[in-house]
């Protein structure tokens, strides 16, 4: 049993290790680049310059920060639970790193194409909520505890729309031989050679994007890490390199979820003309496919920064209501509409019509919610007993 990399046949253990090594390199460079780019982009939005001092245009800012963090003292509070506190960075970082295994970058360029790739990605990526709660619980700090609970509540609430929106797209995948539905990320990307799935499933894309922002704890869903409320959330007590592990995990998650969105909705390396170019010239084709993946992922990441520069933080009751009362019913409706069209073999245009109608409905709901006069954010605590009586 042998694998193949760069045209050389090697042992599958070495093959897997080599591919993982490439992923580690990509992750390190990408995370540093993303931190730098985010600071630059946000600075431009706010009419500042961002980092300029370290190296030309400040590009050495991230390596400098990494070195500084490496040299900082790594403190552990006396009251902290040593095991939970020490293990939390592993539980945050390792699951996110494992998502790399199933992500396709170009034709033949992935760690593995798993038959249940999408299920694997969703299952593994959600483990890191456990790490957040461990960090909050282990620190024995009220800010950390509150932040962890908020992160858990938000994470599980938006997990559902995220999963169901991705299932809706995976249903639509049409394979040769009239087979519909696939969880294999390689097949999902290859089948988008002509039309990316955002065309058939715009509602699912919007739900995925919103849920992705929430899963990443990005603005406007950043209440678990809000500086003005819980001074940084579950990571208050962490310092030095241990703290930077959480940060690395966060930016890796941003990269990976954007890669996933680009692969599932925007056509990954296949659209437009990914396979045609590869047939003309192999090396050019691979470069072109990498370029497509990078451009789409980069665009998604840029919009995430853009949203951060534009939106204020949401209130917690609005946040939970938006997930449970709007996104969840809409994503279920999307699944049922898709199922009806597919089971009777109706033309695919109906998928677009149903999804588009759902998108209009979502826009109307948001518009009405925004224009409604502001109400007070609910009764003071103690209302739960009153609730039980009604």
């Amino acid at each position, binding site marked *: 049993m042998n694998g193949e990399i760069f045209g050389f046949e090697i042992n599958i253990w070495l093959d897997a290790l080599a591919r993982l090594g490439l*992923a580690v390199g990509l992750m390190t460079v990408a995370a540093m680049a993303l931190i730098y780019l985010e600071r630059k982009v946000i600075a431009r939005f706010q009419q500042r310059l961002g980092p300029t001092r370290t190296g030309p245009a400040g590009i050495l800012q991230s390596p400098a920060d990494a070195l500084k963090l490496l040299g900082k003292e790594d403190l552990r509070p006396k009251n902290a639970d040593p095991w939970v506190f020490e293990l939390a960075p592993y539980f945050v970082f390792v699951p996110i790193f494992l998502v790399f295994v199933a992500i396709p970058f170009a034709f033949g360029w992935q760690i593995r194409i798993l038959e249940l790739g999408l299920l694997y990605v969703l299952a593994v990526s959600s483990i890191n909520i456990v790490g957040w709660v461990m960090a909050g619980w282990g620190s024995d700090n009220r800010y950390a505890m509150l932040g962890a609970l908020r992160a858990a509540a938000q994470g599980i609430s938006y997990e559902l729309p995220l999963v169901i929106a991705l299932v809706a797209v995976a249903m639509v995948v049409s394979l040769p031989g009239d087979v519909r539905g696939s969880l294999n990320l390689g097949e999902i990307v290859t089948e988008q050679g002509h039309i990316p799935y955002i065309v058939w499933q715009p509602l699912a894309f919007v739900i995925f994007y919103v849920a992705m922002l929430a899963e990443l704890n990005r603005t406007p869903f950043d209440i678990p890490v809000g500086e003005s409320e819980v001074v940084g959330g579950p990571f208050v007590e962490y310092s030095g390199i241990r703290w930077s592990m959480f940060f690395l995990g966060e930016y890796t998650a941003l990269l990976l979820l954007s890669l996933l969105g680009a692969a599932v909705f925007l056509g990954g390396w296949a659209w437009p003309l990914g396979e045609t170019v590869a047939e003309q010239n192999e090396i050019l084709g691979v470069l072109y496919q990498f370029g497509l993946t990078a451009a789409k992922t980069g665009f998604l990441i840029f919009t995430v920064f853009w949203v951060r520069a534009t939106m204020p933080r949401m209130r917690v009751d609005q946040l939970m209501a938006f997930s449970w009362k709007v996104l969840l019913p809409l994503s279920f409706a999307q699944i049922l509409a898709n199922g009806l069209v597919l089971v009777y073999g109706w033309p695919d245009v109906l998928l677009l019509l149903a999804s588009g109608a759902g998108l209009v409905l979502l826009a109307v709901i948001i518009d009405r919610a925004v224009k409604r006069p502001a109400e007070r954010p609910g009764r003071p605590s103690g209302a739960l007993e009153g609730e039980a009586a009604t």
Partner: protein
Amino acid sequence: MGQSLDSLFSGYLPVLLGAVVGFFLVFSALVATRLLAPFSAEREKGTTYECGMLPLRRASTNIGVRFYLYAILFVLFDVEAVFLFPWMLSFVELGAAAYYQMLLFILVLGAGLAYAWKKGALQWR
């Protein structure tokens, strides 16, 4: 059988190795900081971060009940999502009956969600 087990092994081998590699990435960073960073055990450094005073009790008490409500709802719907995966891969071949069975299942869950909504379990307070 042997062949498919082999391909399963080679498919998920990177997952196993990835967990090990990820663990060692974090571990090596922590070892590096042990070597590079200064360490001194001072009493004041070990105190919990609070606005200048010592916290009164441990932090891990009194968690609001609303978190449990959302957790219970999440478990219900997550189990439902697990059922969706095998269904979505096979319902077209199984025909209309499979679709209507899932429709019924989702409608029952939808009724549950509507009940929770009406009871105010979805209202954060």
